[in-house]
């Protein structure tokens, strides 16, 4: 079942002269881990803003075409209602956190939904544990490191137990090890709880390995859409300047040089190392 479905979605920001996205038709299935990528300014962030109703409710502007998220037509449902189903995590956690303690930040969305105290306690603790920040619950968010702050932002979204989480370059301000840990948390939420994940990211080196589905955009349009390994196998991805993982690229160039490597295209260094080990044994 498609959790998110758009048909010929076109959108112009207020005062804009041309559409930021044009005729976008995509389907995201329940439980999928989808990666959305493409050159800077290609419309990825705009598309995500449609997925949780920020477009058109907050940004206004002109939206054409159809879009349903968890079966709801986003135009007919207000943001607070959509927020129960779709959580959004931004690039910079500083823009998202504001409360005096981690716990209060995580509870904020639930307070707005009028959840009972007892229920709230349970959900907040659950989210704090899943993201590994239970011990930080009484700390002030602004005193935490960037990686910890981003975990708080993810916990705040998780506490609402949405079926879909959208993350817009959630680790670009983090050091590589903290970034890796965040992606691992997101991956576990996807695998263990079946949460649908939509991740906007340029750095496929870090993220391709977790994804089932990749959507590549350019100039407001979807230019490639399909299973991650299938898409990365095709040369087209390179032509539009997508930085495909180095491990994948190395596999491609060695195969072109006639090296016999297994048939499954690697998405990570681990997978590539395994293929090379086999090639050396052969």
């Amino acid at each position: 079942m498609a959790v998110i479905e758009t048909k010929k979605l076109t959108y112009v920001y207020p005062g804009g002269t041309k559409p930021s996205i044009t005729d976008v038709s995509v389907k995201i299935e329940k439980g999928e881990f989808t990666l959305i990528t493409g050159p800077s300014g290609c419309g990825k962030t705009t598309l995500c803003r449609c997925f949780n109703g920020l477009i058109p409710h907050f940004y206004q502007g002109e939206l054409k075409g159809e879009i349903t998220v968890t079966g709801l037509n986003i135009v007919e449902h207000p943001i607070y209602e959509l927020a129960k189903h779709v959580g959004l995590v931004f690039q910079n956690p500083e823009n998202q956190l504001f409360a005096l303690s981690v716990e209060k930040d995580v509870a904020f969305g639930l307070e707005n939904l009028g959840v009972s105290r007892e229920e709230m306690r349970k959900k907040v603790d659950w989210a704090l544990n899943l993201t590994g920040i239970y011990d930080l619950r009484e700390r002030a968010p602004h005193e935490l490191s960037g990686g910890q702050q981003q975990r708080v932002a993810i916990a705040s979204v998780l506490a609402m137990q949405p079926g879909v989480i959208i993350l817009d370059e959630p680790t670009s301000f983090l050091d590589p090890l903290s970034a890796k840990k965040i992606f691992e948390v997101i991956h576990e939420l996807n695998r263990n709880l079946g949460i649908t994940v939509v991740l906007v990211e340029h750095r496929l080196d870090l993220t391709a390995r977790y994804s089932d589905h990749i959507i590549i955009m350019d100039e407001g349009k979807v230019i490639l859409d399909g299973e991650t390994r299938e898409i990365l196998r095709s040369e087209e991805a390179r032509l539009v300047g997508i930085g495909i993982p180095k491990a994948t690229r190395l596999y491609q160039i060695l195969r072109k040089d006639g090296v016999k490597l297994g048939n499954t295209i690697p998405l990570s260094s681990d997978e590539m190392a395994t293929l090379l080990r086999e090639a050396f044994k052969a």
Partner: protein
Amino acid sequence: MIEVEDIYFIYPSGVEALKGISLTIQNGEFIAIMGQNGAGKTTLVKHFNGLLKPAKGKVLIDRVETTKVSVATLARNVGFVFQNPDHQLFSETVEDEITFALRNFGFKENIIKKRVTWALNLLGLTQYRKTSPFMLSGGERKRVALASVLAWNPKILILDEPTIGQDYQQKEKLRQFILQMKTQRKTTIIVTHDVEFVAECNPRVLLMQDGKIVADGEARKVLTSPGVLTQASIVPPQVAQIFLQLPDLELPKNVIDIYEAQKILLNSLEKKAK
């Protein structure tokens, strides 16, 4: 030339951000400063343009101590592009943004015009000349901030996280530009978490941890030393990770470049076939 002599810095909150740093950066060097969030990277580079002054020790830019000159004077030679472009942008159009500093430095109008056109073109922003920076995407705003500094052609360029939100093509352009700076004997210093970008450029890497420099050397050496990297919260680049996982195959260490990896693997497989 930048000379740093045993500097310490303490924020008013009491956090000791730099704990005894000494280093020399020659003209024409390309430096990447890496390390965990909070390691002191941004604090260190803010000393290079006088935004911060050390509590102890000295920073000299071309043999002049930063405490002896104003930030405005230093800015002419040391351009600084912040991590978050929104801390820097304020004009109504992209063109005005780039023109602003040039006017402040007293450039002539005909030169300003040329410089603005050059910077817009270099960063792929020509189509946005009359657009408000706030209408642009995060990655595009970042390039406007960069254009506004490049336009005045500083001798030392400091870029805090220049690759955030930039796609592969933009990063490649940035790499080419930095190489150009090098040939003009100009210095570029980037603060970055982007190990893949650093692997492609192979600059001198300064690895920071807890207010100190814990490694200083060529990227191919520093980025292939797992021990010191893990301590500093850095993950080796993907090519290095592949080689680090195959220690028993007797391949060379210190490989971060994909085409070098290709050559080495082809040679080794060929030898093995014989």
